[in-house]
């Protein structure tokens, strides 16, 4: 799940970025509204973490722009201005949720998952497929009574596949979800993580569609 972070404070942006990555999300970091526009134009973000005071304008204006172009990407506003009026302004501009600084990383993650879930039209926090019961908050799952833990990268691939069960996701798309704009991705990284996932979930859980990519096997439960 790729998340765009629009935050100009280096330390906070870095913390969010590392925290999200450790939780199995794929963060992309921009520090200005101009860069944020560019990133959004490329697409592929499940959610946006948006600061309000940015060097080249306010996050509220960016958000209004976004919504006026009918972009419905869920947005979580992060801001130091947490008076009631500021919250109302932010939510009215089209934000899905609002967090006042300083916040808990756990809460950011929980709210991110909640707004993404809402955007996907799911009410239940858990993801279920083929006997697998995934808890995104813990990056863990249960299968036939057994608890399974995943590494952030493994979980990112599993999550991407679970978001659109049955759809074929190409290797490059999965690479994007894994590493974002990071350079120097090893060419077989996706294969390695899929291999590890199959070891944990069973060889049939993820199918390889030759020349196209990967997909989840049909739900037989």
């Amino acid at each position, binding site marked *: 799940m790729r998340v765009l972070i629009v935050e100009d*404070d*280096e*330390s*906070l942006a*870095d*913390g*969010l970025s*590392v*925290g999200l990555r*450790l939780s199995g999300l794929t963060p992309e970091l921009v520090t200005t509204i101009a860069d944020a526009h560019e990133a959004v134009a490329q697409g592929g973000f499940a959610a946006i973490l948006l*600061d*309000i*005071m940015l*060097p080249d304008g306010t996050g509220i204006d960016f958000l209004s722009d976004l919504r006026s172009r009918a972009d419905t990407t869920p947005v979580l506003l*992060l*801001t*130091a*201005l947490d008076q009631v009026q500021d919250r109302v302004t932010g939510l009215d501009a089209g934000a899905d949720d609002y967090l*006042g*600084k*300083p*916040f*808990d*990383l*756990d809460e950011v993650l929980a709210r991110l998952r909640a707004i993404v879930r809402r955007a996907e039209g799911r009410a239940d926090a858990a993801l279920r497929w083929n006997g697998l019961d995934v808890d995104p908050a813990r990056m863990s799952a249960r299968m036939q009574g057994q608890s399974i833990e995943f590494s952030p990268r493994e979980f990112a691939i599993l999550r991407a596949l679970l978001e659109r069960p049955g759809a074929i996701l190409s290797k490059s798309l999965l690479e994007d979800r894994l590493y974002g704009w990071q350079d120097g991705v090893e060419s077989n990284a996706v294969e390695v993580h899929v291999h590890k996932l199959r070891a944990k979930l069973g060889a049939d859980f993820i199918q390889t569609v030759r020349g196209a990519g990967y997909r989840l096997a049909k739900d037989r439960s």
Partner: protein
Amino acid sequence: MNSIRIRLFAILLAATGIVWLSAFIWVQQSTRAKVERVLDARLAEAGQMVSSLISDQRIDVARAPATVTETPTDGEFSPVGYSHKLSCQIWSLDGILVGSSKSAPTAQLTSDDTGFSINAIDGERWRVYSVVNETLGLRIMVGDSYTVRDRLVRDVTKGLALPALLMFPILAGLILFSVRRGLVPLEQMAAALSRRPADNLSPMAVASLPREIKPMGDALNGLFSRVDAMRDREKSFTSFAAHELKTPLAGIKTQAQVAAMAPDSETRGQALHRIQLGVERADRMVKQLLALASLDTGDGTSDGTCNVISVVKAAISDLTRVATDNHVSVQMGDRTDGKTQANAVLLTVAVRNVLENAIIASPPGATVEIVVSRDGEHCLVAVLDRGPGISGLDRARITDRFYRGNGAKEGGSGLGLSIVATALQRLGGTVDFDSRADGGEIVTLVFPQG
């Protein structure tokens, strides 16, 4: 008596009273003069008439005085009430009373030979005209009592004063009414102002105000807009300060949580390092905010002056560590007689901030120069660096609070130059920014020496 209405009323009433009183005195004086003239003319006429009548022997000398006094002349003031006191005596030149009118006193009316005279007889003042008839050897004296004259004048002036006194309360009422009506716009303005809620700082409508209170309306609108601007500034300062303080805190907290959940020591170490940087930055921000707040309120700045050179030297030595860390050297040039003085606290704050900026902006190995000089009554402290300089777009806003120039190094509060500008403002000076021809920036503090 601090009421325009009462004051105006009193002034108008007093002025009207004074005008009326002067008019009254004037009329009284002129009436008296006129009455004197007319009655004197009548006296003379009567005297001449008696003289000519007895010369012509048309009447008896003894009866002559009664003729004039009982037959009113055709003069202006001939009503019965005033004429009966006209008295006539005829004396022989050797001092024997020949004839006298009934109303005449027994004593001689005058001792003067001819012409007008004033005489007191039996405690009564008389105006007497005497004429000498040479042919008959007689002196004719015609007189009237001043009692009559005074009554005449009194009656005329009384006729004038009575209606005036009766009119005065009515006039006072009219004045009061006019003053009230005239001050209605003021009351309306006061009512409009008192109805205004505290947060309404929109300008009031001045177009319809009378010319006299329009300047007050304009001044109030000016005040409203200044207060509004100040409130906006404070509001934006508060929200900026909240952002600038809470963001590093959020960064520290997030990094602490990252450190707690870090799977490896490298991630944890990096997060801990970030926490340290964040705390340093928050600390700097708090210091700068406190410095700015104390400059704004004027707290904590004593009036003590200090030698400018020693302030600059102290600032350089304070920043030695920063300079060493950045591999920058600082050189001072002194072009004064060494006696230049200025407020120690304000100047220290300003010099420190400018010098620190210059050191941080300079590339490693560069030299920051700080030159103190004098220009007439002004002292100049110029700080020259070899940094990237301030870009044209930033130059106008560089002293704005929380404004960080594009490409500014991470960790700045955006307050340093605001502090410098505020300190210089309090010193009565200015801070000027100029780019150096061969790269770098010159920041000059210009202030009057104390």
